[in-house]
C-alpha cells in the first residue's frame, strides 16, 4: 500500500498541476470561439455552444462599423511582428555566434577583459538604457522604424555569453587538428564549429525569436505609428478601448500567442536540449 501511494501520489499531483496550468490557455481558445457577449455571464460558460470565427474575422480584416469601414490593424501587426522577429533573430545570431565562439576558443589580446566587461554588463537592466536610446534614435530619425525597434537587441550580451558557455565543451584538439591540416580560422568556424553548435544555434534562434515576438516595453516606446505596431502593442492598445469585449480580446490573445506556442511545441527538443544540456555534441 505504501509503495502504491508513492507511485500514485506524485503522478496525481503533477497531473493536477499540469491541468491547472493549461486551464487558462484552453479557456482562452474556447472563449475566442464564443459569440459576442456570451462569455461574461455567470456562471462563466466553459464551452462555446455556437462556435464562431467571427471574432477572428473582426480583428484581422476591415469591417463595417458605426462610422463606416474600420480595422483593428491586427493583420498588419502580425506581419510587423513576424518581420521584426525574423530580422532580430538573423542579426542576433550573426553578431553573437561568432563572438561567443571566439570568446570560448580563440586566443586574442583583450579577450579576458572584454569578457569581464560583458559579464558586468549582463547585470545592467535594459530599461536603464531606454530613455537615452530613445533620444539617440529620435536625433537619428529612427523613431517609428524597424531599425529603431531592432536597435537595443543588437547589444547581444546574453547571446554571446550563452554561446560561449555552450562552446567551451568543444575539444581544442579537434580545432588544432584542422589548423594543422591547413584550415583557415573561418573554415574551422564554418566547417567544424558551426555543425557541432547546431543545437545551440537553433536554441538561441528560438530564444531570440520568442523574445522579439513578445517584447513590449521597447516597441511601445519606439513606435507611435499605428501601422508599425507589433502584435503585443496593438493588442494592448485594443484592450484599452474594448475591455468589455472578452471574446474579441481572447481571439487577439490567441492570434498573438498561438504562433510562438506552436513553434515551441514543434521545436521543443531543441529548446529543452539547449536549456538543459548546453547542447554541443561532444
Amino acid at each position, binding site marked *: 500500500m505504501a509503495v502504491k501511494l508513492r507511485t500514485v501520489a506524485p503522478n496525481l499531483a503533477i497531473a493536477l498541476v*499540469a491541468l491547472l496550468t493549461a486551464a487558462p490557455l484552453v479557456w482562452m481558445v474556447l472563449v475566442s470561439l464564443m459569440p459576442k457577449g456570451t462569455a461574461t455571464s455567470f456562471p462563466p460558460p466553459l464551452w462555446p455552444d455556437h462556435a464562431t470565427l467571427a471574432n477572428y474575422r473582426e480583428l484581422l480584416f476591415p469591417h463595417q462599423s458605426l462610422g463606416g469601414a474600420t480595422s483593428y490593424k491586427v493583420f498588419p501587426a502580425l506581419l510587423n511582428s513576424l518581420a521584426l522577429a525574423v530580422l532580430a533573430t538573423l542579426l542576433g545570431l550573426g553578431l553573437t555566434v561568432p563572438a561567443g565562439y571566439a570568446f570560448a576558443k580563440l586566443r586574442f589580446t583583450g579577450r579576458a577583459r572584454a569578457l569581464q566587461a560583458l559579464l558586468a554588463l549582463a547585470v545592467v537592466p535594459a*530599461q536603464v*538604457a531606454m530613455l537615452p536610446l530613445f533620444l539617440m534614435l529620435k536625433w537619428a530619425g529612427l523613431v517609428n522604424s524597424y531599425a529603431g525597434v531592432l536597435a537595443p537587441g543588437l547589444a547581444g550580451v546574453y547571446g554571446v555569453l550563452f554561446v560561449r558557455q555552450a562552446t567551451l565543451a568543444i575539444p581544442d584538439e579537434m580545432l588544432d587538428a584542422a589548423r594543422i591540416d591547413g584550415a583557415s580560422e573561418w573554415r574551422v568556424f564554418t566547417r567544424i564549429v558551426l555543425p557541432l553548435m547546431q543545437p545551440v544555434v537553433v536554441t538561441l534562434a528560438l530564444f531570440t525569436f520568442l523574445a522579439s515576438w513578445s517584447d513590449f516595453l521597447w516597441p511601445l516606446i519606439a513606435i507611435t505609428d499605428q501601422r508599425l505596431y507589433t*502584435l503585443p502593442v496593438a493588442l494592448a492598445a485594443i*484592450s484599452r478601448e474594448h475591455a468589455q469585449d472578452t471574446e474579441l480580446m481572447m481571439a487577439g*490573445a490567441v492570434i498573438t500567442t498561438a504562433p*510562438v506556442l506552436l513553434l515551441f511545441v514543434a521545436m521543443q527538443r531543441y529548446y529543452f536540449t539547449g536549456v538543459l544540456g548546453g547542447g554541443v555534441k561532444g
Partner: protein
Amino acid sequence: MNRQARAGLVFTAPVLLATILLLVLPTAGALLLSVTDFDIYALADLANLRFIGAGNYAELFHTPSFWRAVGNTLLFAGLGVPAAIGTSLLTAMVINAATVRWKSLWRLLLFAPYVTTLVATALVWRYVLDTRSGLLNYALSGFGLAPVAWLENPRTSVPATLIFIVWKAFGYNMLVFTAALSTVSTELQEAARLDGAGAWARFRHVTLPAIGPALLLAAVLSVANFLQIFTEPYVMTHGGPAQSTETVLYFMFDQGFTWWNLGMASAVAVILFVAIFALTAAQARLGRRYEWL
C-alpha cells in the same frame, strides 16, 4: 598578430561595437540625463536644458507616489521571488520522482506558459481574475467561497497579479532545477537513506548542496526580473486600483513617456540600476561564502 588573434578580433568586434553604442553609451547617458532637467521643452530645443545636480533625486525623495512605487515593487519581489522559486523547485522535485510517468508531457505543459506572449496572457488572466465572471472565482464558488475582488481591491491586487506572474514564469526554473536535480548522486542519496537520514535531512544535506548553484543563480535572476515588472500592471490594472500595482518601472515609463520628464525618469532608471546591481552583488557574495559559486 597571429591568425587566431586576428580572427578573434573580427569575430568579436561587431557585437562589442553594437554593445558599446547601444548599451554602454545610453547607460552612461542615463547617468548624465539624471542630473539635468531634461523635459518636453528640452526635447524641442536643447538650449532649454539645465544642469541641476542631484535635483531630480532630491525631488524623487520627496515624491510620495515614487515611494509608493518602490514599496509596491518590493512587495512584488518579496512575495514573488519565494513563491516563484518555491513553485519551480516543488514541481521539479515531483516531476523528478522516479515513479512519475510521461515526464516529457508534463514538462511541456508546465513550460508552455513561459513561452506565451506576456501581453496576451496578461489579458487572459485579467478575465480569469475578473470578480463577477472570472474563472478563478467560479472555481472558488465550487468550494463554497465568496467571490474575491482580485484586481479591483488594492489589498489583493499585488497577490492576484503574482498568481499570473508565477504561473507564467515557474516553468523556466522548473526546467533548470530538473536538470540540477538529475546531477544529485543517487548513491549518496541511498547511502544517506541507509544511514537513517529522513527525507528532510536528505534534502538539506544531499540535494540542496548539489543544486545550490542553480538555486542561487535562479534567485539572482528572479530578483532582477521582479524589480523590472511593468507589462503585467500596464495590461491588467493600469497601475491601479489606487496606485497599488504601480511599479518603479511603471513610474519611470509614466514620467518619461507620458509627461516627457526624461531627466526625472532617468534618475528613476539609475536608482533601479543601482538597486539591482547591489542585490546581485550581495547575492554573489552570499553564494561565495557558502561556496556555492
